[in-house]
């Protein structure tokens, strides 16, 4: 056995263990999540947990209903997408087809820079600047509400949506556009009737990954959503998303109490929601690749 062979083997196994480590970390996190979260179901049934409307974990007897928390997360995330998807998609179209190539090389990295701003900075902005503006603009008692969280999360999801939709749009084979223009369509008709439909599953991936980022975001919603565990019936009212609940209450609750286990229980629910988003995103990615790849 030569020295070179041993070295090769050593490097091969080193890389193998590094790759394995992330799988081990994932397995460890899931194991802890379930070990600490499942005991809550000895105090409350799964159905009561996810459909109960009262979150009073400290009361005697406690109420562990997380429907207001799940709904708050979904409403805030949906609102963020209502803001981010049109802006993101139109930006992507502009960058992909209208902006000259020279400028595109500058503009796209700048939009991606938005993703590198720490979320606590977005939270501070929402707290100190957006909250007073919303309060005075809509004459509200407080600027800490669902709308504030939607706007901040929408801005945070923009870079993901712009960057991935732009990739999807430029991945549509050039002959599609040329053929459509040759048939006499205008540029906008070519974009809206040919290229966007062709890139639709790629755009869907972008939106779902943006959604995944928004639903798991913790710091911003903790700082600006207000933290009231009520059903989100009004976007001008305070809400308490799942992530904010875990972050706010974990520090003070005593380890091993039903409240502690219920917070991990929320973690399990959140885990399944983001897992679902990732599976859907994966499905659309594969569909897009087979479609674009197969026909060009």
């Amino acid at each position, binding site marked *: 056995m030569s020295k070179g062979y041993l070295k090769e083997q050593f490097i091969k196994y080193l890389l193998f263990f590094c790759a394995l480590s992330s799988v081990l970390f994932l397995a460890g996190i899931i194991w802890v999540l379930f070990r600490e979260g499942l005991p809550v179901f000895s105090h409350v049934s799964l159905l009561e947990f996810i459909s109960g409307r*009262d*979150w*009073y*974990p*400290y*009361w005697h007897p406690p109420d562990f209903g997380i429907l*207001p928390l799940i709904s708050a997360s979904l409403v805030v995330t949906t609102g963020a997408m209502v803001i981010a998807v049109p802006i993101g998609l139109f930006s992507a179209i502009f960058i992909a087809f209208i902006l000259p190539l020279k400028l595109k090389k500058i503009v796209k990295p700048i939009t991606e820079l938005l993703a590198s701003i720490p979320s606590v900075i977005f939270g501070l902005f929402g707290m100190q600047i957006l*909250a*007073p503006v919303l*309060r005075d603009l809509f004459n509200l*008692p*407080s600027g*800490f509400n669902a709308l504030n969280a939607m706007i901040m999360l929408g801005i945070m999801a923009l870079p993901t949506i712009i960057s991935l939709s732009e990739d999807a749009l430029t991945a549509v084979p050039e002959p599609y556009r040329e053929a459509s223009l040759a048939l006499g369509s205008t540029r906008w008709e070519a974009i809206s009737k040919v290229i966007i439909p062709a890139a639709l599953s790629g755009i869907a991936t972008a939106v779902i990954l943006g959604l995944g980022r928004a639903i798991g975001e913790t710091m911003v919603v*903790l700082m600006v959503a*207000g*933290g*009231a*565990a*009520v059903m989100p019936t009004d976007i001008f*009212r*305070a809400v*308490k998303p799942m992530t904010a609940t875990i972050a*706010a*209450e974990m*520090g*003070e*609750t*005593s*380890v091993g109490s039903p*409240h502690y286990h219920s917070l991990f229980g929320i973690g399990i629910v959140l885990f399944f929601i983001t897992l679902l988003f990732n599976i859907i995103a994966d499905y659309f990615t594969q569909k897009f690749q087979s479609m674009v790849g197969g026909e060009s």
Partner: protein
Amino acid sequence: MKMLKILFLVFSLVLFFAGSALGGDSITIQGSTTVNPVSQITAEAFMDQYPHINISIRGGGSGTGLAALVDDAVELAQSSRFIREDEVRRAVENGVYPVPHRIAMDGIAVVVHPDNPVNELTLDELQAIFSAEITCWSELGGPNQEITIVSRDSASGTFGVFNDIVLRDRRLAPTALTQASNAAISTTVAETPGGIGYVGLGYLSERLQAVFVDGVKPDNTTVSSGEYPIARPLFFFTNGWPEGSVASYISFVLSPAGQELIEQQGFVPLH
């Protein structure tokens, strides 16, 4: 044979010193997270003076601390409430005799926006406000403005006192905004014209207006005299009357130097 005797002597000496080092000079405190800052700052100053005594502090809540004392697992339980009857009964069954030591007072001021003309409320009015039975300041002689409740998170010690004294048998309105710290409550109430919240006495400032509760102004004097209603004593519990290092630590906490440290942490000293 002589060798064996020397060995025996050395061995017993080692055992003797090890035993005294482990048993005599280390104190374990467990219990309320509210009391934690009090224990921490006094323990640090105490250990500077008595380097041979080691104090370790664990949180977990008043109930956990008292349970550990009942099991004779800790020397001191820190508690933000008095010991309950069933806890005393279990302690006595275990041969443990819990002795309470009042170490400081904890007062909570109710605060509103400085522009709010309402500056006096009763405990019953506060209960109605925080359970959302009263939702508009006009019902209390103030402007026609919606009340925005700002509360601490439900697991915090401050919320615990407030819940016991003000809310009693009612639940906090789910519409209440929740904030994670005294400082965050101060900021939110200062920026919300219709806001009402509660903070430890150490967090009062000119950005906030502290209301009189049942006609009593919240300050160190009224809290220590017991006139101000939203206050409670903080306790250490020992097994029997304290001796040795535990006794010197408790006397340090009760001394003027210890009480001054406690006041710096935003609690109300006993004297």
